[in-house]
């Protein structure tokens, strides 16, 4: 998904670090990585540690980190739009021409911002100020870290073969952090393969009403 961008920018001291938030590990994420054959590092995060550290609630989410290890853009949606909600046939997964155009606009604007930062560094308007980074990164609440605790304990029990014991922890993680689509969809998928993109997913998306699934990014 990011190979073109990486090929274009890799000689400018730029790296893509892709992290699969996937409790299914290699068995789930592996086939996608093998099919795409990316030349940038693709890491597998079965416990969703990166989501916890960076307060990510959905995929794709991204953080920009400069050469000194400083965050210059905190967690935000990485070039995705809500077009799929209204512009996609839910049976055939076909997206309308209008939907494709909307998707392209969002992604192109985001990629152009990344190109600008890669070229200009701190001078790029897309590397936001320290205060702005702080303003945009709220960090977790007590409920959120407790949700993470439920997810981690459930995920451990699940991988140990205690599926039934894991499920109540998963449902509590979803309740404590309702904004986390990654907890919701990951735990649904562990409950029942296919559930993450099935009718439960679509009813949850529809229940958003006017609210965003992918909140628009202020570039």
């Amino acid at each position, binding site marked *: 998904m990011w190979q073109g961008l990486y090929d274009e920018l890799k000689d400018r001291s730029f790296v893509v670090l892709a992290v699969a938030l996937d409790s*299914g590990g290699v068995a789930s994420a592996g086939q996608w990585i093998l099919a795409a054959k990316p030349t940038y590092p693709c890491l597998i995060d079965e416990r969703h540690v990166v989501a916890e550290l960076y307060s990510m609630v959905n995929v794709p989410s*991204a953080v920009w980190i400069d050469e000194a*290890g400083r965050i210059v853009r905190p967690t935000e949606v*990485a070039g995705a739009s809500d077009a799929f909600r209204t512009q996609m046939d839910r049976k055939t997964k076909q997206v309308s021409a209008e939907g494709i155009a909307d998707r392209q606009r969002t992604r192109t604007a985001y990629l152009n911002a*990344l190109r600008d930062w890669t070229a200009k560094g701190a001078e790029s308007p897309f590397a936001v100020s320290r205060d702005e980074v702080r303003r945009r990164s709220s960090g977790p609440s007590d409920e959120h870290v407790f949700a993470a605790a439920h997810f981690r304990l459930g995920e*451990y029990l699940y991988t140990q073969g205690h599926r039934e*014991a894991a499920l109540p922890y998963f449902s509590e993680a979803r309740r404590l952090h309702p904004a986390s689509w990654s907890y919701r969809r*990951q735990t*649904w998928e562990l409950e029942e393969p296919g559930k993450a*993109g099935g009718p439960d997913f679509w009813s949850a998306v529809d229940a958003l009403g006017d609210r965003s699934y992918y909140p628009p990014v202020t570039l």
Partner: protein
Amino acid sequence: MSVTILYKEQPPFPVMATPDGDDLWLTLDDLRSATGWEIRPEGVCREGQCVPIPEGREREFVRESPPRFNLAALARWLEQPVLHDDVHGVWFFGEAARVRRETLRSLQAPDFRLPDLEGRMHSLANYRGKKIFLVSWASW
């Protein structure tokens, strides 16, 4: 009984311990191996940071003979989320929300270590000196 400790991002660590309701008493060796915490004259220390045991409440934290330390009491004192499954003997200790927020406010990107498809480990720190586009995805 046998208890598995999941301490923050550390790998699962099995110990022999005595859970007592919401308390978990560990030998000092297990405490160090499972979590990195060590008892010193100045308090209980980990990764160069020491936390004094609150005065007058020593008995909640430490037992003398045999020497045991209550990891759950320390976690509560540090406002860490703690969760235990008594049927399977698993205890999870997370990071306090306050610490996570302070880390993000420092603007330094928190480090992590994760494997790639071949099992090679990568940490964020390996890529210091480059601009990093850290991006999540998922198969689900």
